[in-house]
Every structure is written in structure tokens, then in C-alpha cells.
């Protein structure tokens, strides 16, 4: 819902939740866009995985293509891909690329956890270690992105 965006300024370098514009329901846009982005990106990957199941025994060819593209899961995943792109551009309109891109690492976490929860894949200790380290890195980022006059925009340049 980027249409409610206030006029951007060159100092829009970093997300500042305290001053972030809200949508018509009074929710900060980040609180809507990020969960939506993670949900769409995760559902897209799980959708492709589900769509690949009936293809396991097939060789690549016209029949493979017909079965792959004929599945509802495939259509849903392609739609999910496009929707993820739209939400990503809406996020980039209002967030510094350096901050936003690091946050996309959460998709690795949600896809891994989603595969375990819904596709019955097993998690190993190293995967859990990776997830913990990703969270640690993002926690450090969170401490930078919090509203503080010192780091808002170009105030320090």
C-alpha cells in the first residue's frame, strides 16, 4: 500500500519507526509490508517445492512442462513471486537498501522452518545454529534502525 506514502526526501536513508507514515488503519506501513513480504516469499518457495513433487520421476520434456505448469501450486507460486516483487519495491521505496536487504535473510529462516512444519523436512543442529546466528545479526541491525537523531538520514554527514 505505497500510495499512502508521504513525499520522500533524500534523507530517507533509514527506517525510522517513530516517524514512519501510517496507512488508513493507523498501522505503520513497515508492520504490514514486512510480514506480507516474508509470508509471500516463504509461501512461494514452499509452493514451488510442492509443485515439484509429481516431477520427481519424470525427465525434462514436453510432458514435464505440461505437468509442472498445470498444477495449482505452480500457478500460486508464480503469482506469489510477482506479489513478492511488488511488496519488495514498496519496501525499497521507504527503506535503505542496506537495511532492507539484510532483513531478507529472514526468508532463509522462514523457508527452513516452514519446510520442517508443513513439508515434514528434518532440521539438523547446524541449521538451527545458522538460524540463531542470522537472528543475532539482525538484532544488531535493529539496534541501529531505531529512532535516534544521531543516525537519522544525513544528519551525520
Amino acid at each position, binding site marked *: 500500500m505505497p500510495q499512502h506514502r508521504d513525499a520522500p526526501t533524500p534523507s530517507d536513508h533509514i527506517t525510522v519507526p517513530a516517524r514512519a507514515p501510517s496507512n488508513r488503519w493507523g498501522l505503520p506501513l513497515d508492520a504490514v509490508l514486512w510480514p506480507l513480504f516474508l509470508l509471500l516469499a516463504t509461501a512461494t518457495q514452499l509452493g514451488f517445492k510442492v509443485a515439484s513433487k509429481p516431477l520427481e520421476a519424470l525427465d525434462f520434456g514436453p510432458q514435464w512442462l505440461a505437468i509442472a505448469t498445470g498444477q495449482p501450486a505452480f500457478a500460486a507460486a508464480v503469482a506469489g513471486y510477482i506479489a513478492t516483487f511488488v511488496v519488495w519495491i*514498496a519496501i525499497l521505496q521507504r527503506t535503505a537498501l542496506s537495511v532492507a536487504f539484510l532483513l531478507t535473510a529472514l526468508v532463509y529462516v522462514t523457508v527452513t522452518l516452514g519446510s520442517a512444519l508443513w513439508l515434514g523436512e528434518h532440521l539438523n543442529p547446524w541449521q538451527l545454529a545458522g538460524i540463531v546466528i542470522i537472528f*543475532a545479526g539482525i538484532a544488531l541491525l535493529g539496534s541501529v534502525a531505531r529512532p535516534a537523531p544521531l543516525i537519522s538520514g544525513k544528519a551525520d554527514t
Partner: protein
Amino acid sequence: MKTELLILFPVSIACDVAGQVFFKLGAGRMAEIGHRTLPAFLSGLARDRWLMAGLLTFAVETLIWLRILAEVPLSIAFAIASLNFIGVTLASRLLFDEPVSALQWTGCILVTAGVAILAAASVG
């Protein structure tokens, strides 16, 4: 084979970084125009040249990625691709003049390491 990968991996990461830079440029230009409704935002999105350039870059990147996957297992390829987090942070700092604090760099390196470990551990 080995020498080919030494070229393919950097090119793949460069494509990732360039694609995101194009997306950021397109998003920035769209924000300047200011689309007030969702249909206006979507039609602006479909027409933006920077966004097209970004999509094209990712199309090329997909082909390079397939070439890489033909040579190395997915878990290894993904672990190396996690370097794109460092690449995009560097590009944001250099090209868009975004402030990146020491704490943020530490976070970036942790995220890169975390994704690399998670990817390398995800086999099958």
C-alpha cells in the same frame, strides 16, 4: 571446471548486487513520482526502466546460477552466494551514500555467516 567457477561465482554475486541496485533506483524514482493508488503504483511499476533492468539482470543471473549448479551441490552454491549480503551492503554505502555503522557491518557479517551455515547444513 575450477577456473570457470572462479569467474561464475563473482559474476553471479555481481548480478545479485546490480539487480538490487537497479530495484532501489527504480523504487526511488517511483517514490519521487508518488503513486497515490494501488493501480497507479502497479502500472508505474510495470513501466519503470530501472525495474526492468533489474528483472533482466536477475534473468541473466538465473542462467549463470544454473551453470553453477551444474558444477557444485546446491548447499555449497548457496553458502557462497550468501556473500551477496556483504556486496549489497557495500554497494548501498558506496553508491547510495547510506550510513553503515560498525555495528551494522558486524550484523551484516553475522547474517552472511548464518546464511552460509544454514545453507551448507541444508542438504537434500
